[in-house]
């Protein structure tokens, strides 16, 4: 049984590696930042508030949507609530470092993802605030 397991593992590792070669899971959150004052934010929103404070301090950060995307070389379009669309694609995956291209008109950005940090991309105005696309490593 143990041998069978080892054999299965040996056969399946390259397969799994191959399957993951060009696909990177990315946690994609859409957050609305407004001046509206909220007394207490959730811990993730508080962390975002602190990070963005270098540019602008929002009174409220509201998580509108959250999902894990499988980003590959094939461009992936993400509709945003302000009628814009974000396009995500994987530029490269070298030595375990994913370089991702994110296009949110009018900007076109290319970044290396990081295990500890988040990439905050300003996605324009929405209602009375600013829309942010937040990319990070999926939790769990």
């Amino acid at each position, binding site marked *: 049984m143990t041998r069978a397991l080892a054999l299965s593992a040996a056969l399946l590792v390259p397969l799994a590696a191959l399957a993951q070669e060009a696909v990177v899971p990315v946690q994609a959150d859409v957050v609305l930042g407004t001046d509206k004052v909220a007394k207490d934010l959730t811990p993730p929103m508080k962390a975002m508030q602190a990070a963005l404070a270098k540019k602008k301090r929002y009174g409220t950060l509201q998580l509108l949507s959250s999902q894990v995307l499988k980003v590959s070389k094939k461009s992936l379009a*993400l509709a945003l609530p302000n009628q814009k669309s974000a396009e995500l694609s994987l530029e490269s995956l070298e030595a375990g470092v994913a370089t991702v291209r994110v296009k949110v008109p009018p900007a076109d950005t290319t970044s290396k993802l990081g295990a500890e940090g988040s990439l905050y991309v300003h996605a324009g105005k929405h209602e009375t605030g600013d829309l942010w696309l937040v990319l990070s490593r999926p939790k769990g």
Partner: protein
Amino acid sequence: MEQCAPFVATDDLTLVQRVRSGDQRAFKTLVERYQRKVFAVALGMLKDREDARDVSQEAFVKVYKYLDHFKGDSSFYTWLYRITTNICIDVMRRKGNSKTEHVEFDETAQLDTSEANLGALGTRLGTNPQKAMLRQELAEKIQAALGEVPEKHRAILLLRELEGMSYEDLSRTLKIPKGTVMSRLFHARLKVQKILNEYLELDESTAGVGSE
């Protein structure tokens, strides 16, 4: 180019149809779209965070379970809020914690604002609620004030203030005539206004609300 599920652009009815055809992600999108609003309604009704969270979960579970009963003749959120307020009312009755449950306004009674300190609220708070919201006590007082409003009136006030539901939608959601909507809303507002006024009068000696 591969197109992934849009965040908000997809309308509720399309999502409902997708859920019916077995798309779990569509249901998740609906839950994420309305979870905060449903919770806010439930919290306004019940005043207890845990209860409100439980009710919110229950409301979505019911929505999923009875999705085939949703005819689409009203909007999805109207249906969702009707389910939410009904569960809230059930919870209140089960717990017997609604002091005001049996206090019903006579819809035909003459409206009495003689005791209200008219204009005081407007003068003190101005029309910038965000500024006034800087005072946590005021937020707490608003919740307490809501607790004093009879449950049927509270449901109307919450749906109007949180969702901006039209009188027509309120009438459909709560299955009451439009005139009753108007009357209950007026009474509910007077009640909240009176309690807030009392709070502001007490507060006058310390610091002016909205003076930050």
